[in-house]
């Protein structure tokens, strides 16, 4: 039900998630934040069932904070991605697996802009752009068409807006609100809050 979008630009990574929390046919909340800030230049958008996204998001956030305290430097995007992947891969064969999908965005000196796709099984892929959920069916082709290697920040945000427009136009499930975030060397900031009017 929940759509996640992500796209890399040459100096930042743009990620977006819808802001609807629903239980079966009822909308419980329409301004939910599905983004977790995992570090100064690291953030993820996460979706899934039954409270797992919130719990798993916080769990990863706290563990990455602990790593920084213990080792006196923070895990970069590559390390964090593999740490999160290992947690998911161990979870899938446990008594009750986490049921989450996520997109991890990070900026670093060595890697530049990095976007990672992960699913509940612990599959990991570093991608230039990607999406989760039903929204992916409408968004991936748009991103295939419009994305360039050396996209600027504004171009990337424009592409995300195009994808959101298409999702809102063609997906039968109403997703009126989206939040867009930019992860750059200056940090994680909310770029836009496309909220439904009250």
């Amino acid at each position, binding site marked *: 039900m929940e759509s996640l979008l992500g796209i890399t630009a040459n100096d930042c990574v743009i990620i977006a998630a819808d802001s609807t929390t629903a239980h079966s046919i009822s909308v419980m909340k329409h301004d939910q934040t599905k983004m977790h800030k995992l570090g100064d230049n690291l953030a993820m958008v996460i979706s899934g069932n039954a409270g797992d996204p919130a719990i798993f998001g916080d769990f990863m956030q706290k563990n990455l904070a602990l790593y920084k305290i213990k080792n006196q430097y923070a895990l970069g995007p590559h390390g964090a991605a593999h740490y999160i*992947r290992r947690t*998911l*891969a161990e979870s*899938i*064969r446990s008594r009750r697996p986490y049921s989450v999908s996520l997109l991890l965005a990070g900026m670093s000196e060595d890697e530049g802009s990095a976007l990672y*796709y992960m*699913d509940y*099984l*612990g*599959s*990991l*892929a*570093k*991608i230039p752009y*990607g999406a989760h959920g039903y929204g*992916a*069916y409408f968004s*991936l082709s748009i991103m295939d068409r419009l994305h360039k290697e050396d996209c600027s920040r504004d171009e990337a945000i424009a592409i995300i807006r195009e994808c959101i427009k298409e999702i809102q136009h063609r997906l039968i499930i109403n997703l009126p609100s989206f939040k867009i975030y930019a992860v750059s060397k200056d940090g994680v900031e909310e770029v836009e809050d496309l909220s439904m009017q009250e």
Partner: protein
Amino acid sequence: MEMNGSAVVAMVGKDCVAIAADRRFGVQAQTVSCDFQKIFPMGDRVFVGLTGLATDIITVSQRLKFRSNIYKLKEHRELSPKTLTAVISNLLYERRFGPYFCEPIVAGVDSTTGKPYISGCDLIGCPVEPADFVVAGTSTDQLFGMCEAVWKPDLAPEELFETISQAILSAVDRDALAGWGAIVHIIEKDGVTTRTLKGRMD
């Protein structure tokens, strides 16, 4: 095994081996990435290709690299391809009743004897060591057909490259879950040549 899709093939030539894999990572019908790594070096002249569930491809390749590194530190020499097959077989059989959904292929040239070697296992580690070629993934039927048609014994490295490239490209074209490009490694006693193939991106 049909969740992510993959195709890996290895062939024996004259004093060389070739191993090739497709590059697709998808979730059933939806393609997520076209540069997913399925062949991993476990030494200078030994490569392992893994097919099946993507998460298990990553986990098994990491666990195998760990065992390979420990072996190298203890023995001061690298794992030979034949021994690596035994290590993988053990790794997979340890999970006999909750297996990794992963079918590996080993391809390499023994650094002491110079003999080319290929092998494959099923998901619980049963090894097979044919003299000609091994295939794995969602396109095994297609790959078997292609390999049987184009393979000859004692192919030189350049000819082997052509042969394995034709085999994998034609095979994955008939499989919706595999393809989106391919990567080929030719392993000889004195070096490894890696080439990426341009294929149909559908």
